[in-house]
């Protein structure tokens, strides 16, 4: 039902895509920031 | 008169100075010395109430200075508070530290400093050295119990230095005390406190 792209199903897919992207961004950004700091910490220790 | 008890001040996490103790008597002049960036100005700002997030206690006339409303302390900082587009007279007259505006008195001090200033000219037309002398004349004409001065001797000519020393002497004989910072040697013996002694690295 939702798989065909007629009607306005494209809109639903678009929103789904944006949702996943935004949630992913919110999770990846802090992860990357923390990893960066931890990497620096390791370098400093050695 | 002023008692500083275990004063510490930190920017973010780094302490500028720690556990600083100082006691000021009446009719004394205290010189605060220290290397560049050691916290001389910060210390003066702590005493004069501009920076209040210090640790420790500052007592004025045996009371916590934070509980005293408008103690008779005159502060003159590195920034002089003058507005360039106002005339000299307007600047001096409207200075909030100056309860009674005495033009004659200020004029006399200015001529002692060897500084020719027209009161009706915008203060922006004068050089930093001249502004300094105007500020010091204001200081000389205002009566206060304690004067807190940041670098009063810097960028002064020889005549100015002699004149300021004379004003200092006069102020103490009138019963006031003075705290000032300087990184130069005045060749005079003041009670001295070195901020560098209160570092903990």
């Amino acid at each position, binding site marked *: 039902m*939702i798989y065909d792209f007629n*009607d306005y199903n494209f*809109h639903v897919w678009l929103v789904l895509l944006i949702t996943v992207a935004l949630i992913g961004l919110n999770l990846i950004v*802090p*992860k990357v920031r*923390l990893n960066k700091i931890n990497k620096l910490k390791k370098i400093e220790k050695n | 008169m002023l008692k500083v008890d275990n004063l510490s001040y930190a920017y973010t996490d780094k302490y500028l100075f720690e556990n600083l103790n100082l006691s000021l008597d009446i009719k004394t002049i205290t010189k605060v010395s220290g290397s560049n960036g050691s916290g001389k100005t910060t210390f003066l700002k702590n005493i004069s109430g501009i920076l209040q997030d210090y640790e420790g206690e500052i007592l004025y006339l045996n009371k916590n200075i934070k509980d005293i409303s408008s103690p008779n302390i005159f502060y003159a900082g590195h920034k002089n508070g003058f507005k360039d587009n106002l005339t000299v007279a307007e600047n001096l007259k409207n200075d909030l530290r100056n309860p009674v505006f005495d033009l004659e008195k200020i004029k006399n001090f200015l001529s002692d400093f060897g500084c020719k200033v027209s009161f009706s000219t915008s203060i922006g037309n004068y050089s930093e050295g001249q502004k300094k002398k105007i500020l010091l004349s204001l200081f000389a004409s205002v009566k206060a119990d304690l004067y807190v001065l940041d670098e009063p001797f810097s960028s002064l000519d020889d005549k100015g230095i002699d004149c300021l020393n004379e004003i200092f002497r006069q102020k103490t004989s009138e019963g006031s005390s003075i705290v000032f910072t300087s990184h130069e040697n005045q060749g005079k013996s003041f009670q001295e406190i070195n901020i560098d002694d209160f570092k903990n690295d």
Partner: protein
Amino acid sequence: MNRAFNNLKTFYHKLGSSPWFYRISGITIPYVALLSFLFLTIGIVWGVFFSPTDFKQGDVYRIIYMHVPAASVSQSIYYTMTVAAVVSMIWRMKMAGIFIKSMAPIGASFTFLALISGSIWGQPTWGTWWIWDARLTSTLVLFIFYVAIISLYSSFSEKKSADQAVSILTLVGAVNLPIIKKSVDWWNTLHQPASIKFTESSSISPEMLYPLIISIFGFYLVVLLSGLMAMRAEIAKRETNKEWFKNY
């Protein structure tokens, strides 16, 4: 009673300690991640792919499973930030400042999601991407508030005072948001816009409602997760030179 209060008090003190928070959040993050992934996938997959088609709107109504949770979350985040702002101003608790700083971008992104999903939904149902209706306008204002809070951080060099400044702004914003909402409502009735109501689905069937509730729950969990992660990163950034962090 007294003991419960004491427990609460020690918990509050622990919350204020960044090493404790860093450690505990490190332990809880995997569980929260698992739970939020579970709820989010179940809610959205059920909603988008398996729930029945709305007989009025057709399949496009399925945007509700992203839009409504995002809108709900975006407001709740501002409320929690307000509470943190009060704590930060009264007790000067530094973790409250870290909380506000970490949550503001998350709040902004979910408000953005609510706005954009609303407008994508509006295009087929109202025939236009945007209408100046009361709810959309106040969500837009909320988004601007988040952006202002985030940009205020950049104008401070000292972390400590940045936290306080942002707390002040958050509080003033919180006091004003109801006024703004109310006035936008008046303005709306005055100008009589197109009479389309968003949530006129008063007779929403259970098959549609369950995935929505699960999805809302999933959104809250994912906010919790990204909040925890952002706070950890912020703690690490601020306390890089502290002994406890070096030895962690």
